[in-house]
């Protein structure tokens, strides 16, 4: 089993080899299903000049937002950002480069990156600022633009359960971008809530096969909720 045992026992080991100016793809949507401890490890390492690829950029003190105060992020490729003050400040000051990418295009770019597809056509973004500088072409009378895939030096992933081979199962909408990001990292690091014995996961029910996973660590998670909305009041209260 040694050769397929992906488990590492420290976050330092999990993120070993991450150096300045690398590209990191992160799973998660909002604060849901984010690799919170792997992000914190990047903060502690102090790695700088990073290009982050993630649907969002966390909030001021949680998620990818924690990489902002020390200016660790050079550029972020995301679909929706600006949930925190420091992000806005850096973006407005031109200290942080932001490449806005439609959410579905972003997901597909990660998948394509992992799947060896360098580019694909999509109607999303045709005729919008997203199309600027991109090839346009018609198929069956509809307009499309050419989008290129994304790969990262690292991918950082949060899953629910894994076996030691790195077979992953995600839970509810914490799945989101995680399985896609997992395919697109040269080194894919996964943190999970529980590591089970090899053979315990039903082969038919594995969301991400271990072939995509390089390192695996068990962590504990805060799982902060961004919009705690309940039935009685139906009112969203920001946290």
């Amino acid at each position, binding site marked *: 089993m040694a050769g397929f045992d992906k488990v590492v026992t420290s976050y330092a080991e999990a993120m070993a080899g991450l150096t300045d100016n690398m590209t990191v793809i992160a799973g998660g*949507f*909002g*604060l*849901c*299903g984010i690799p919170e401890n792997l992000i914190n490890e990047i903060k502690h390492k102090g790695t700088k000049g990073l290009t982050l690829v993630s*649907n969002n950029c966390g909030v001021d003190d949680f998620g990818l937002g924690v990489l902002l105060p020390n200016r660790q992020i050079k550029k972020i490729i*995301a*679909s*929706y*950002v*600006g*949930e925190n003050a420091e992000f*806005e400040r850096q973006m*407005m000051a031109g200290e942080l480069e*932001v490449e*806005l990418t*439609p*959410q*579905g*295009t*972003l*997901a*597909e770019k*990660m*998948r394509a990156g992992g799947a060896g597809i360098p580019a694909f056509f*999509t*109607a*999303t*973004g*045709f*005729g*919008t*600022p*997203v199309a600027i500088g991109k090839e346009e072409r018609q198929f069956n009378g509809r*307009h499309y633009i050419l989008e290129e895939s994304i790969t990262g030096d690292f991918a950082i992933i949060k899953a*629910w359960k894994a076996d030691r081979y790195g077979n992953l199962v*995600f*839970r*509810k*909408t*914490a*799945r*989101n*971008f*995680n*399985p*896609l990001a997992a395919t697109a990292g040269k080194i894919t690091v996964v943190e999970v809530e529980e590591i089970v014995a090899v053979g315990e996961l039903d082969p038919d029910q594995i*969301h991400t096969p271990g072939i995509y996973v390089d390192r695996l660590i068990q962590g504990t998670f805060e*799982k*902060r*909720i*961004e*919009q*705690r*909305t*309940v*039935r*009685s009041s*139906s009112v*969203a209260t920001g946290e």
Partner: protein
Amino acid sequence: MALSREQIAQRVAQELQDGYYVNLGIGIPTLVANFIPDNINVMLQSENGLLGMGQFPSEEEIDADLINAGKQTVTMAKGASIFDSAESFAMIRGGHVDLTVLGAFEVDVNGNIASYMIPGKLIKGMGGAMDLVAGADNIIVTMTHASKHGVSKLLSNCTLPLTGKGCIKRVLTDLAFIEIKDGKFHLLERAPGVSVEDIIKLTEGELAIPVNVPEMQF
């Protein structure tokens, strides 16, 4: 009188059909879920990877791993399914969603929509809106007909950066239900108590007006 947010949602809900898979955007569109007629079933798609979104959770049911595209805690309806973001947008981009309802800053007579970016203001991003407008055949845009200052949002040409080009066919505002075709706005219905003249005044793009413009029924 101009429709309230709830009334806009209520009128949109009349367009739902039994068995529809529906994506509701943030804001007024979200409210549509409150007005689904009792005699039909619809399944709500949330683009972060959930088909079959249920109501908000009770305090006990709250689950950080179960949110909607607005990042609100939700529950799952019976028969729900979960999938990754690529699959979610495959559904959307591939035209499998029956109806999409979303907000906008502007629409124009060519079906263009601007909804994500006001130059000079903080740009938060398009999220899934560009995918939704490009992927859906059947979209209803909900918005106020004009700004507080009386500036029309139904234009000859959108002035803001576009979210999508030539993809909007129906708009429901607080004043009117409008179809876009052949490079014109076509007035289908007016809000109760709102006159055709009121609507003409606040519509900058060319407006085609039939002889009879019925009031919306609630």
